[in-house]
C-alpha cells in the first residue's frame, strides 16, 4: 500500500518537475511510452530506496568511525575483523531477490510491448531513414511524404495503433519520439518494426537518436496526431497530384531543367528522383529541412540557394541559381500545397 502510494507520488513529482517539455519521457501519451513510464517509476523507487539506505550507512560510518587523533599522533589500531559469512551471505541473497523481482517486471513489459497482437485495422507506415531526413509512406493509402508523420489518434475504447516498418537507405538512424514510445533503431539492410497509439491529438517532437553523419543533429522528427476526420482529410489531400498553377510555370521550368529532378519527386512532372524528399505537397508542411526551419518562402529560397545555410553537411548541393531563378523556383515550391 505504502509502495503503491509512494509510486504514485513519485510519478506525479517526476512528471511535473520538467514542466511542459515537448520531449519529456515522463509525459507519455501512448501505450508503449506509458508502460515504460510505469516500469521506470518502479525502478526509480527501488534504486532510490537502495541509494538512501547505502548512502546513509556510508555517511554514518564516515562520521561515527572517523579518526579522532590529532595529526601525527599514533593511535592504537582498531580491532581487526576479517569477515563474517552470515552477513556476507545476507547481502548476497537480498540483492538476488531484488534482481529476480525487477527482472520479472521487466520481462513482462518487454513481451507486452514487443509481442503485442496487431489489430486488423492498424495503420501501416513505412519509415525510411536517410542522411538527414525521414521518408514516410503509407502503402495501403498511396501516400508518400517526408519529415512530418501524420497518424490518427487512438481511442482507448477502440485502439487504432500505427505500425511503423522501418529501414534505412544509408547509415544507422534511430526513431525516437519520447512521448510516444522508446527508440527503435533504423538500420540499413534490416527491417525493424514498432508501434505507437497516441491517445491525444497534437504535435509530438523527437529526433534521430543514432549518430548518422555530419548533420545528425538536425534530423528532427515531427509526428502530427490528428482526429480520424482530420487524418482522412489529410490523406485525401496528399493523394491529389501536385497543384498546377500557370502563374508559376517559369519556376516549374527552372525546377525541371535543373538537377532538382534527379533527387526529388513531384508527381505529375518529370521530377521522379528518390534520393531527396518527395515535394509533391511540400507547401502543406510546417517545416523544411527535416524540421530545421519553418516553411516560409524566405527559408525555402535560402535553402535552395545553399542548404548549408541551415544544415551544414546536408547532401543537397548548393544549386547555383541566379537571383531571378531562385525567386521563380521559390514561388513554384510555395504553391505546392
Amino acid at each position: 500500500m505504502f509502495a503503491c502510494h509512494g509510486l504514485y507520488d513519485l510519478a506525479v513529482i517526476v512528471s511535473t518537475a520538467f514542466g511542459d517539455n515537448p520531449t519529456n519521457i515522463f509525459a507519455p501519451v501512448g501505450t508503449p511510452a506509458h508502460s515504460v513510464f510505469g516500469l521506470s517509476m518502479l525502478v526509480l523507487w527501488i534504486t532510490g530506496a537502495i541509494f538512501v539506505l547505502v548512502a546513509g550507512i556510508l555517511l554514518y560510518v564516515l562520521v561515527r568511525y572517523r579518526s579522532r587523533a590529532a595529526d601525527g599522533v599514533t593511535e592504537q589500531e582498531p580491532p581487526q575483523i576479517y569477515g563474517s559469512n552470515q552477513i556476507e551471505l545476507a547481502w548476497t541473497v537480498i540483492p538476488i531477490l531484488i534482481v529476480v523481482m525487477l527482472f520479472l517486471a521487466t520481462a513482462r513489459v518487454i513481451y507486452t510491448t514487443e509481442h503485442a497482437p496487431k489489430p486488423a485495422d492498424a495503420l501501416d507506415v513505412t519509415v525510411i531513414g536517410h542522411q538527414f531526413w525521414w521518408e514516410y509512406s503509407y502503402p495501403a493509402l498511396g501516400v508518400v511524404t517526408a519529415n512530418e508523420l501524420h497518424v490518427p489518434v487512438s481511442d482507448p475504447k477502440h485502439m487504432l495503433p500505427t505500425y511503423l516498418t522501418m529501414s534505412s537507405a544509408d547509415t544507422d538512424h534511430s526513431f525516437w519520439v519520447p512521448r510516444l514510445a522508446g527508440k527503435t533503431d533504423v538500420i540499413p539492410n534490416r527491417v525493424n518494426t514498432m508501434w505507437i497509439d497516441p491517445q491525444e491529438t497534437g504535435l509530438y517532437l523527437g529526433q534521430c537518436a543514432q549518430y548518422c553523419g555530419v548533420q545528425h543533429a538536425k534530423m528532427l522528427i515531427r509526428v502530427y496526431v490528428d482526429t480520424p476526420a482530420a487524418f482522412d482529410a489529410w490523406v485525401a489531400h496528399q493523394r491529389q497530384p501536385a497543384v498546377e498553377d500557370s502563374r508559376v510555370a517559369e519556376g516549374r521550368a527552372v525546377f525541371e531543367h535543373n538537377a532538382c529532378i534527379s533527387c526529388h519527386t513531384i508527381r505529375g512532372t518529370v521530377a521522379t528522383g528518390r534520393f531527396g524528399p518527395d515535394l509533391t505537397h511540400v507547401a502543406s508542411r510546417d517545416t523544411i529541412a527535416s524540421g530545421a526551419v519553418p516553411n516560409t518562402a524566405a527559408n525555402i529560397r535560402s535553402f535552395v540557394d545553399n542548404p548549408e545555410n541551415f544544415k551544414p553537411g546536408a547532401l543537397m548541393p548548393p544549386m547555383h541559381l541566379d537571383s531571378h531563378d531562385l525567386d521563380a523556383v521559390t514561388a513554384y515550391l510555395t504553391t505546392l500545397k
Partner: protein
Amino acid sequence: MATQTPVTEVLDLTVEKAPQRRWLEVLHDWVTTVDHKKIGLMYIGYALFFLVVAGFEALLMRVQLAVPNNHFVSPQVFNRLFTMHGTTMVFFVGMPILFGFGNYLIPLMIGARDMAFPRLNAFSFWISAFGGLLLYFSYFGGSGLYGAGSAPDVGWFAYAPLTAQVFSPGHSTDYWTLSLLLTGIGTIGTSLNIVATAICMRCPGMKMSRLPLLVWLYLVTSCMVFVAVSPLTAAQIMLMLDRYLGSHFFDTQAGGSAVLWMHFFWIFGHPEVYILILPAFAFANEIIPVFSRKAIFGYPAMVAASVGIGFISLSVWAHHMFAVGMGPGANTFFVLATMAVSVPTGIKIFNWLATLWGGKIRFTVSMMFAVGFLFQFLIAGLTGIMLSVAPFDWQLTGSYFVVAHFHYVLVGAILFMLFSAFYYWYPKMSGRMLSETMGKWHFWLFLIGFHLTFDFMHVPGLLGMPRRIYTYEADRGWMIWNMVVSSGAIFQTIATLLFVYNMVWSYFKGEVAGADPWDAWTLEWSTTSPPATYNFAKIPSVASRRPLWDLKHPEDPDSHYETTEKPGGEERP
C-alpha cells in the same frame, strides 16, 4: 618457516650516489629501459598527457553545447571532437594509466624484481604509445566524412556502415582502425605479462590466497583483456578488408550486416568497461583498508566477486543494443545477465562499507577521493540498473542520460580512484609526498565540478536530448541544464591543472616521504621510496596477506588467523 627472510632485511640502506648525467643519457636510459617501474611511469605520463588533450576536447564540446544553435565549432569539428575524446579516453588514457599503475605496483606487491617478461613489457608500451600518436597524426594526414574531416569522425564505437568507403572516404577512419589495432597488440602483451607475473613471480610464502587484492583484480582484468580485445582486433581487420579489399562483412549495400559490427564492438566494449573499473576497485581494496586501519572485510568474497564480475560481464554486451530490434527473447536474456552483474558489484560495495565500519578512518586526500569513489560508484551502479531495464533503456539509450551514467563510472568512480591512487602511491614513486593542502583544493574543486557536470547531465537525457548532436533546438527546454553542465567543466579544468601543478611542485619541494608514509601493510612499502632498480635487496618471504602488519604487530600477526583451511571468515577473539 625458519628460512624466511624477515621483511626488514629487504631494505637496502646504502645510498645511491647518482652522478649528474647528460639529458641524452637520461633519455637513452628511458627509451631503452625494461625496468617495470620506469615503464609504468612512462605509461602514466603518456596517459596523463592524453588526459589533458582529451579533457580539452571535452571542454570545447561543452562550450559548443552551453547554448542552443551555437556556432562555436562546426558540426564537422564537433563530430571529430567526440570521436577523438571517446577513443582517446578509453584507449590512450584509461588503459595505459591503469596498466602503468599495474606495471609499477604488481612486482613490488608480490616481492618480485621485475615483470615476468621485461622486454615484452617495453615492446607493449611502445607499440601502444605509437598507436596513440598515429591516432593524433590523423589531424594532419586523414580526411573524414565526404572528405570533410581530418581526424576520425565516426564516433568511438564507429558503427557500420558509416565507416564504409562510401560514407567515410579519405583515411581518417583508417587511422582510427590502425591505431586501435596497434594499441590492442600492446594491451594483450601487457595483460599476458601481468598474468604470468602474478602467477609465476610471487615471493616465497605468497600463495594465491595471500595475494594482495590489487594483484588479484589485475589478474582478472588481464584475463578479460584476452577475451575482449581479440574480437575488437578481428573486427578492425574485417573493417579494413571491407574498406580496401572488397569484402562485405559490414557493407550493408552489398548484403553485409551493420548489426554484426555492433555485436563485435560491444563484446569488446562492455567487458572493456569492467577492464577499466576493476583496477579502480583494485586501488580501493588497498587504500580503503589502510586509511580505515582495518584489514579488508571478506577477502575471499572480494576475490570471488571480482572473478564473478569477470565472467558475467562477458555475457552482457547486447544491453547496448536493446533498441536494435533483437526481439523479446534476446532482450530478456541480456536484461537478466546485466542485472546479475549487480550482485557481485553490490558485494564489493558492502564489503568496503564493512571495512570502514569499526575502523579509525583517516581522511587524507587519498581517502577523500576514495570516499568520493564509493559514493559516486553507488550512484553509477544504480543508474546502471535503470539502464538494464530494457524498456526503460528504449527511452534512455543514446540519450544524455547514458552519457551521464558512463561518465559517472569513468570519472566519478575510475578517475576519482585514480586520483586517490596518485596521492597514495606518488610518495612511493617519487620519494616525496604530494601537498595535502593543494590536494584538498583539488578534491573539493573537482568534486563540485564533477557534480555540477554529471548530476545535471542526466536531466536533458530524460527530456529527450540525444547524444552526439553538435547543437540542439531552443524550444526543447534543454538549455538551462546544458549551461549548468558546461559550468561544471570549468571547475574540473581548474582542479586538474592544480593537480598537475601539485605533482610538479611536490616532486621538487614536497615533504620527503620515507619508505612507509601511510603506515601500510603491503610489500611495496617495505622498500625505499623510490625503490631501487632491483626493488628488493633480498627477496622477502611472507606468511600472511599483510606482511608489514605482521612485522609491526608481532604479538598479534595476521598469520595466526589465516589458515589454508579457512581463508578469512575467522573473527579475532
